[in-house]
């Protein structure tokens, strides 16, 4: 029994999606080809003009659809064809990474830099990443793993978060307000920004989960808290926000506890 299991693990071929920028990393991959640098055939590449074009949506979408790993490659910092597109990629990646930590998928997405001259390095990155994903095993979202309803709901919440205008605004302004100054002529400290981003992401993530739980069926604070394994106080706070935003409504009062439902 254990033998057959280890054998099936051996056979696991990860599905990896690569987003490569046209100017450096894709050219680096071309050079790997010209130099006949051999690497595992697990990565399928989508070529975009800049790593800054990799919308967090694409990453989450691919994970939901069952990709075992995602590789985002751009020009080295300072070498971007468009000046600072890769810094934007970095800001987006940081957000996605923080968010994926909540669902423990963060180690399946990576951002790195490959120049047009680094064919060998490209082959190495692909090899290392493939090996890493291979050792992690299939993604809990891949069809092989028969994804659980819980993880699917969590990812639905994650998708909502990256799609959320507030989060996009915050990430979009990060470099501007931490490097330059905001309209009040203040420069926000990077650590302070990180804290703020963390808090906002977590709150948004929890709220979206609550919403999707209520979408399944109306629930009380206690029921949601039990389902999500999160303190009732936090759930209650977020329920208030959801109510303020007119996304949920009171359904009924069961005994002493109010039951909430999604507003249609």
């Amino acid at each position: 029994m254990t033998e057959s299991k280890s054998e099936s693990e051996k056979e696991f071929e990860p599905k990896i999606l690569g987003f490569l920028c046209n100017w450096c990393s894709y050219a680096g991959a071309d050079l790997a080809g010209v130099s006949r640098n051999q690497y595992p055939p697990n990565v399928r590449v989508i070529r975009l003009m800049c790593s800054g074009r990799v919308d967090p949506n694409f990453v989450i979408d691919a994970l939901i659809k069952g990709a075992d790993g995602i590789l985002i490659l751009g020009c080295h910092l300072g070498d971007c064809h468009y000046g600072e597109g890769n810094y934007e990629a970095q800001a987006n990646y940081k957000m996605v990474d923080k968010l994926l930590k909540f669902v423990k998928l963060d180690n399946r997405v990576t951002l790195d830099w490959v120049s047009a001259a680094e064919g060998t390095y490209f082959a190495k990155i692909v090899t290392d990443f493939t090996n890493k994903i291979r050792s992690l095993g299939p993604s809990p979202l891949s069809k092989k793993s028969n994804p659980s309803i819980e993880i699917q709901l969590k990812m639905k919440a994650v998708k909502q978060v990256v799609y959320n205008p507030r989060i996009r605004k915050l990430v979009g302004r990060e470099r501007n307000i931490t490097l330059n100054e905001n309209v009040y002529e203040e420069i926000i400290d990077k650590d302070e920004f990180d804290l703020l981003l963390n808090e906002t992401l977590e709150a948004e993530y929890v709220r979206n989960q609550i919403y999707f739980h209520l979408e399944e069926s109306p629930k009380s604070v206690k029921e949601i808290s039990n389902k999500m394994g999160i303190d009732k106080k936090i759930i209650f706070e977020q329920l208030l926000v959801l109510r303020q935003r007119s996304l949920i409504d009171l359904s009924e009062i069961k005994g002493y506890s109010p039951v909430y439902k999604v507003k249609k």
Partner: protein
Amino acid sequence: MDEIRIGVFVCHCGTNIAGFVDVASIEEYVKTLPHVVFTQRNLYTCSETGLLAIKNGIKENNLNRVIVAACTPRTHEPLFRGICSEMGLNPYFFEFVNIREQCSWVHQKEKEKATSKARDLVRMGVARAALLEPLEKFQIDVEPSTLIIGGGISGMSAASVLANQGFHVIIVEKDTELGGQLRNLHRLYPGDMDSQKMLSIREEILKNPKIEVHISSKIKNIDGYIGNFDITVLKGEKEIKFGVGTIIVATGTDVLKPKGLYNYDGKKVITQKELELLFKENQFNSKNIVMIQCVGSRNEERPYCSSICCMTAMKNARVIKEKNPDAEVFILNRDIYTSGTYQEEFYREARKMGVIFTRYNESKLPQVTEDSVIYYNESLKEDVEIKYDLVVLSTPLVTYHEESKKLSKMLKVPLDEFGFFLEAHVKLRPVDFSNDGIFVCGTCKWPANVPESISQGYAAASRVTRIISKDTFTVEGATAWIDQEKCIACEICLKKCPYKAITRDEEDRVIVRTVLCKCCGVCSTTCPEHAIDIRHYKDNQVESQITALLEEGEWIE
């Protein structure tokens, strides 16, 4: 909408692809994909025969999408797009699938897996091709003229090259005469040339009917884009307006005045620039000279090496020694930078002439007192005192920071942290800015000596010629596009766009000036309302590739 008819051409590339990927099975597989109405295999799709096959394929099968599964789009995409255009098909209906660099060349020992990967890649390409949209490349008229900002040696060199080719050149110089820093120099290295002789280029410039010179003038405003820049110049009180096709930035640099350093007073403690002035006016008569290198550079405030000071100091030390061999010249340095075939020899000669080079330590800077310089000698491990009647400080080239900042905002080009203009790519595009039609040369880019400034001027002129020698400039059709229904005018994209291609129109809507857009896509990923899409790399096109890869077909099992 017309029925989508995709034709897929699978290339053998000799044995480059066919040797490591089962191309026949790829062709069979492609036939099963949606919208594919025609497939063919070619030995070399990029050959005459291959191209003819595509043409016939389009004609005979009424194809409206063409896919070539072959090599990297980075080389042959323009070729195949051209063939589509020739056949009356919009070039953006062409899709390239790379099964060579991405597949056959890098998985040479795993034919089965490589073939499976190629199948996936082609499937992704077919999915994307179905969603491609026709785009128009458009032509803009180009005014065959150039504005050169700065009339120093670099700007003048560019001007003379361009004017001699018959192009109209306008030089805007903020000073009262042309020449820049060259006017302050006495002799020039290498070659020991009189700077006056070099400056004779000024007469040539002023006489040339193709060159218009505005002295005591400043740039007030720059608008427009490649081929059609609108310039407003402030000449005294008067405003002059004109249009040009291209711009060269050659604003040069200043020499740092070392206020507060080493008791600098401009009399007994002077800079190299002031020393050259003494030479020129024949007022030099000191006997004990101490030069100090790296004054105000290679420190925390200005970590860069000004690259010309070592040679300048040596050149001036040699002038002193030639005038008076008995004069004592010390050059206190941290290290001496003499690169190239000529400069090391120059240094050895200076030593032979009796110039004394001695090192000081950055952590223990020399002290300049009333009549002597005291410095810590590393070899002797003690302080050494040198009597002087003149101290010369080698200070770095520094930018006209405020003015550069203003100009960089007008031109929408970047500066580095010290105020030097930042080129598009240090190796691949050394005199270009990433914005089309704007170029840079001379010391405003980085400290450079006279020969370097001249070569850069020539280089910039040649890059300009590429554009203004043609009547029109073709602008890429793939650009960003804003959905006005969704846009909330938050202006995040406006700040993000590296080309300042996003702006407000007369009706105050946020729009993309497609002429300026380079399709990087940063605006789209940061748009909170998902109102911006990138043509040819649209969200749904990328998503179709993701879906085709992960939800359709088989993956290696």
